[in-house]
Structure formats: structure tokens, C-alpha cells
């Protein structure tokens, strides 16, 4: 398996706090890795690090062939990160939000791609011309997922993606993840929905105190 992620002794400091205290991890292409661990174990920071959003204080890290010290900007074009925030603009409509991200990701025919993504996430067409600010939390999350998949990331970094979604949306999300890995994408997901996430994952990595304590 071609390595997508190679972390060696990775230390990441937030402010003065070492959120990651020496992480070693290898992930191969096409796999789905579930990150588990108690609150504050460093799961979110690990995902953000892989997305190029958090800097590396010590150690070495290569993601999709980009050195995290030098190639973060190129890396960011190829990864998708969905954290607790949706990254949507309230004043724009559902369609405009998704199209904006499609355009930024240089997707050919952004309008058609946005429609397809919204279709895939079952966002009702009557909602598409509404401002995102008027949607419910669950609907917003669906739109955020549409804005995520429309970018066609090669590495999916999902932080608690199931939170705030209803049962059908969770199933949709799981299907999306399976389709993506089947198509060669790699997925890292942090979730407390253990049953659901374990069914999805090819491997489970346990973090505690900013280090990997168990790989199963």
C-alpha cells in the first residue's frame, strides 16, 4: 500500500500546550482509520495537523507526499477537513456556498458539481435558494458535507462527522465514505459513535495524552 500519511515523533504545541506529544502513525492509501480516545487526547489536533492547519513543533510528517513543514499550502488543495464548524456563510444561499467551494477547488463546471453534491446529500431542492442562516443545524451540516465532497479531496479528515445528523444522514455519510475509499481516497475519522464508525473503519487508532497508545 502506498503511504498517504507518515508521522514520526510528531509534537504539536497549541499556545503553550503540547496537544500532540510524539505521534507515530502510518496510513496507507484507500484505508479508513478511526481515531478514538477520551476528550483532550489530541484527536482533533491530529486531524488539523494532517489538514495543514496546525504547525509541527518537532518530528517529521509527510502527508500525500507533502512535507508538513514546507508543503502545507499545496497539501491544503488536496485534503478535505470537516471540523466542528461548518465553514458556511449565513448570508449566502445553500447553492452559492457549495458553488463557492467548488470554484475554489478548481472543479470543472462548478455549478453542475455543486448540484450533484447537493443531490447526493439529499438536500431538498426547495432549500437550495434559501440562505444557510435559515436552515436547521442538521440541514446546515448536510450542506457542509456537500461543500466538503464537492472539493473531491484525496484525504478526508472528519472530526465527529456524525454529530448533529439524523439517522438517514448518517447512513448517507457512511455510504459516501465507502464510495470515496473505494475510489482510492483515504479517510481519517474521529468519532464517539463507536459502533457505526468501527463498521466503517479498517483500523482503529487509540490516542491518549497526545500519543498513540494502541492500534487495532
Amino acid at each position, binding site marked *: 500500500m502506498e503511504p498517504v500519511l507518515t508521522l514520526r515523533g510528531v*509534537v504539536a*504545541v*497549541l*499556545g*503553550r*500546550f*503540547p496537544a500532540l*506529544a*510524539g505521534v507515530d502513525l502510518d496510513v496507507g492509501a484507500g484505508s479508513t482509520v478511526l481515531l478514538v480516545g477520551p476528550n483532550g*487526547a489530541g484527536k482533533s489536533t491530529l486531524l488539523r495537523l494532517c489538514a495543514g492547519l496546525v*504547525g509541527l*513543533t518537532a518530528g517529521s510528517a509527510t502527508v500525500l507526499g507533502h512535507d508538513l513543514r514546507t508543503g502545507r499550502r499545496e497539501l491544503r488543495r488536496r485534503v478535505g477537513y470537516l471540523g466542528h464548524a461548518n465553514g458556511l456563510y449565513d448570508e449566502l444561499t445553500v447553492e452559492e456556498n457549495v458553488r463557492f467551494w467548488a470554484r475554489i477547488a478548481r472543479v470543472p463546471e462548478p455549478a453542475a458539481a455543486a448540484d450533484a453534491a447537493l443531490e447526493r446529500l439529499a438536500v431538498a431542492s426547495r432549500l437550495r435558494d434559501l440562505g444557510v442562516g435559515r436552515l436547521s443545524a442538521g440541514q446546515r451540516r448536510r450542506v457542509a458535507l456537500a461543500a466538503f465532497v464537492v472539493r473531491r479531496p484525496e484525504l478526508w479528515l472528519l472530526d465527529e462527522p456524525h454529530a448533529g445528523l439524523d439517522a438517514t444522514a448518517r447512513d448517507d455519510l457512511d455510504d459516501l465514505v465507502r464510495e470515496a475509499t473505494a475510489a482510492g481516497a483515504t479517510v481519517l475519522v474521529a468519532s464517539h459513535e463507536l459502533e457505526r464508525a468501527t463498521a466503517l473503519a479498517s483500523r482503529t487508532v487509540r*490516542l*491518549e*495524552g*497526545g*500519543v498513540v*497508545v494502541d492500534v487495532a
Partner: protein
Amino acid sequence: MTITGTGSRATRALGVLTLALFALLALLGLVLSPPDAAMGEAVRLFYVHVPAALASYAGIAVLGFGSVMYLWKRSLTWDLLAAAAAEIALVFTALTLVTGSLWGRPTWGTYWEWDPRLTATAVLFLLLLGHVAVRAAGGDVHGRARRSAVVGLLATVDVPIVRYSVDWWRSLHQPATLSKLDPTIDGLMLFSAFVGIVAFMAAFTWFLLHRFRVAWLEEQVEELSLADAIVERRAEGGRS
């Protein structure tokens, strides 16, 4: 190795030299040099005012250089140097403003006149204050370093533009008066001014070395406590 201070043999020598130069400057400026024909005793302020202004420009030059070097090399050493220079430049601009307005009282009859150089110095003072404020706002070390480097660079680029625009603006109303020294100036006065410049430059360098070393030691302490924090953090995971 235990580090007990920020001094070294070289900085101590520089310190002694600086103090000696200031003693000489006091003697020359206050006692030996004659009062000016036009300005009277007030001319003595120049031996402090002009060197302080030059030292603040030197500080800004170091600030700009350090900022660019940080953005290029991303090494904290440059960030700390730039920060040290900014703080010292702030002190010297303040001194320039105070001596300038003290000189203005007997000369113009007011503490403040919109003299181009004085006005430009006031803007400089505020630019440097912004830099210090951004550093005080915190964040992680490299985030702080990036922000201060941007502020430092923007401020440095602004300095010549401020000088030029203020000069030109005020020249419409009155010629630049302050620090326009008469070329036929008395030899001893010229020498006093020269000693003043050398003394202030020595003081600037001396302060800069110490301030930089203090910042550097603080950084070392941070790194040590970070190493402890990492060990502690790993212990949470059950393996230390």
C-alpha cells in the same frame, strides 16, 4: 552550563565605554561647549536630541531587517532581535519627542510645533507602539513572531514615506528648522554633537545586546518547560 546573566566580557567593555562616552558628552555638552549665537543655551539639547533620533532610526532599521529575516528564515532568533530593537527604538523615539518639545519651549514658545521631523517622530512612536502591542497580545511563539514581523515590516516601509510626506507638507508652510545645523558651526560644538552620536550608538548597541539576550533566555526557559510539558502529557497516555 549555568547562565547567570546577560553580560559577557565584550558587553561589559562596551558598557564601560558607553558610560565613559556619556560622561564625556555631559562635560562637553554642558560645560565646555559655548552657547549658540542664535539658540543660546538651548543648543545643548541637540547633543541629546539628534543622537536619540539617529538611534531610533537605527532601531527601526534593525526591526525591519529582523522582520524580513524572520519571514524568510522562520528562525525565532530574528524575531527576538527585531522585538528587542523595536522596544529600544520606542524608548529613543520617546526621548527624541521629549527633548524636541523641551527645545521647542524656549525656541518657538510652545512645547509642540508641527515641525516635520518632530511630527514624523511622533508617527514613528505610534508605529512602534503598535508593534509592542501586537507582541503583548500573545499567541503561540511562531504566531506572535509572524504577526510582529508583518507589523515590523509594514512600519519600516512606512518610515521613509512618512518622512517624505511630512517634510513636503510642512515645507509648504515653513522651512525645516530643527537640527538644521549651521555649517560654520563652532568646532567644539560639532565635536560635542559627534561624541553624542557615538555615545548614543554605543548605548543602543549595548541595550540591544542585553535586551536580545534576555528575550533569548526567556525563550530557552519556555523550551525547557515545554519539554517538561511533553513528558507530563505523555504520562497521561500511560507511557512516559
